[in-house]
């Protein structure tokens, strides 16, 4: 009797709706669940990646180590959506943004409790793991 193969589909928990379930960087989800937003780094050449990835295109190695995104970054740009794609309607309105942390930039959402008038390009922001009411996980940018 062959045992049914377990599928590691942890990534289906990422975001309001995940379009990916299986990836070699599934540990990102466990770390997010523990409150940590992680990027990774190539052990061989030191190249830094966010979003994290399994393989380094620079030295072709697949030996990566995790690091936590800490410290503050600067808000590069953002937009507040008044329409949403299918599956995201209940989240409206929400803002997407890019924040520059120096070593890497991160794309994500701005925390929904920041008033619009407080959001300014160039403002200092941090990245925080976030649990959605549905149990799904994402990360948001908060005021530093």
């Amino acid at each position: 009797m062959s045992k049914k193969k377990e599928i590691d589909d942890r990534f289906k928990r990422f975001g309001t709706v995940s379009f990916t379930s299986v990836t070699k960087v599934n540990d990102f989800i466990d770390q997010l669940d523990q409150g940590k937003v992680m990027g990774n780094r190539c052990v061989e050449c030191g190249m830094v990646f966010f979003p994290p990835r399994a393989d380094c295109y620079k030295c072709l190695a697949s030996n990566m180590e995790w690091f936590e995104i800490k410290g503050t970054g600067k808000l590069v740009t953002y937009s507040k959506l008044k329409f949403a794609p299918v599956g995201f309607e209940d989240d409206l309105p929400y803002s997407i943004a890019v924040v520059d942390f120096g070593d890497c930039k991160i794309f994500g959402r701005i925390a929904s409790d920041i008033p619009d008038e407080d959001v300014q390009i160039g403002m200092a922001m941090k990245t925080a793991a976030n649990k959605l009411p549905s149990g799904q996980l994402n990360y948001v940018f908060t005021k530093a």
Partner: protein
Amino acid sequence: MDRVAIIGVGQSAFVRGYPGSIRELAFEGFKEALEDAKISVSDIGASIVCSAPEYDKQRSPSGVFAEYLGLTPQPTFYLESLCSSTSMGLRMAYSLVKSGLHDVVAVLGFQKMSEISSAESQERMGRGADIQWESPFGTMMPAYYAMFAKAHMEKYGTTLEDMALVRVKSATYGQVNEKALFRKPVALESFSDPEHFMSGPVSSPLRVGDCCANADGSSCLIVASEEKARSFSQKPVWILGLGAASASVNMSGRDIFTGLAVARQAGEQAYKMAGIEPKDVDVAEVHDCFTISEILAYEDLGFAEPGEGKDLIKGKETYREGSIPVNVDGGLLSKGHPIGATGGSQIRTIVLELRGEAGEMQVKDPKIGLVHNIGGVGLYGTVSILGRE
């Protein structure tokens, strides 16, 4: 005798809810291009079918089109680079002809977007971005371009009114383009009237009037060797320069948000290959999927310095009578944007302009034209420079 020409162009009307199947839609652009080139199906050595596949139930449309259009047994294949598919098709056709593999190649672009709802369509378009790391946040095309608009406004003081002026210009020419979806004038005031649909918020700072609309449509280009062009065509339009580039899908990999790196890179390549400078361009078609996109294009292509794109539209320099007419066919904003057909439609307009056959859209005596066609949010970029004798 090794130049490559465009000897025939065609497009369907761009509409909402095309009352036919995709093969019938493709026939409309194809027929017009063949009649324009005055050639028959048997003259075509190969066909390239260009679209974004997620809108269709038909898998591998090339075979279906080849059968319906009588292009068998010649080779046919599919090419995709989102909204820039047909101009990437032109690049491929150029290389097929230049290499000597084929004398005459048809580039068929199409998209039938109306079979799915606008929200579903936005979701599919959003999946033209990074589905693993971005789409789970609820992304869509207007929101991405809105981030570029926001950054440009912040850095250069570009205003909502500057962007609205792009739409006003677009509508000026949409009215005289019989193939366009939107043929009504747009008043600048409609953007400041909260009751008017044009001012409705989509994704800040972009409003409804800042965004192009989905459409159904097809386009077709007939590309030929110099020898064939001479024998078939009275007015061949020569491909002088081609540029193409790509960028990081994920916004986290982008260095700038006040322009599109791919457009700058593709533009530089195309100018160099053609041996011209931006000031030599007499008429241009740029990828105005959003009003801000046209302003970015002015700057990325060197028609204006960074941050000064707004001055071109405010001074009406990009109107038909201006120093650098841009999108005098109404652009994507007025024509509508059937993804895979759009690049072919842009190229068609420039070919007609260079032949002096653009009717009410005609610019005075242009010799060199440029087409800027972008796929995704500056993910793929192509610039094509065309010229007459």
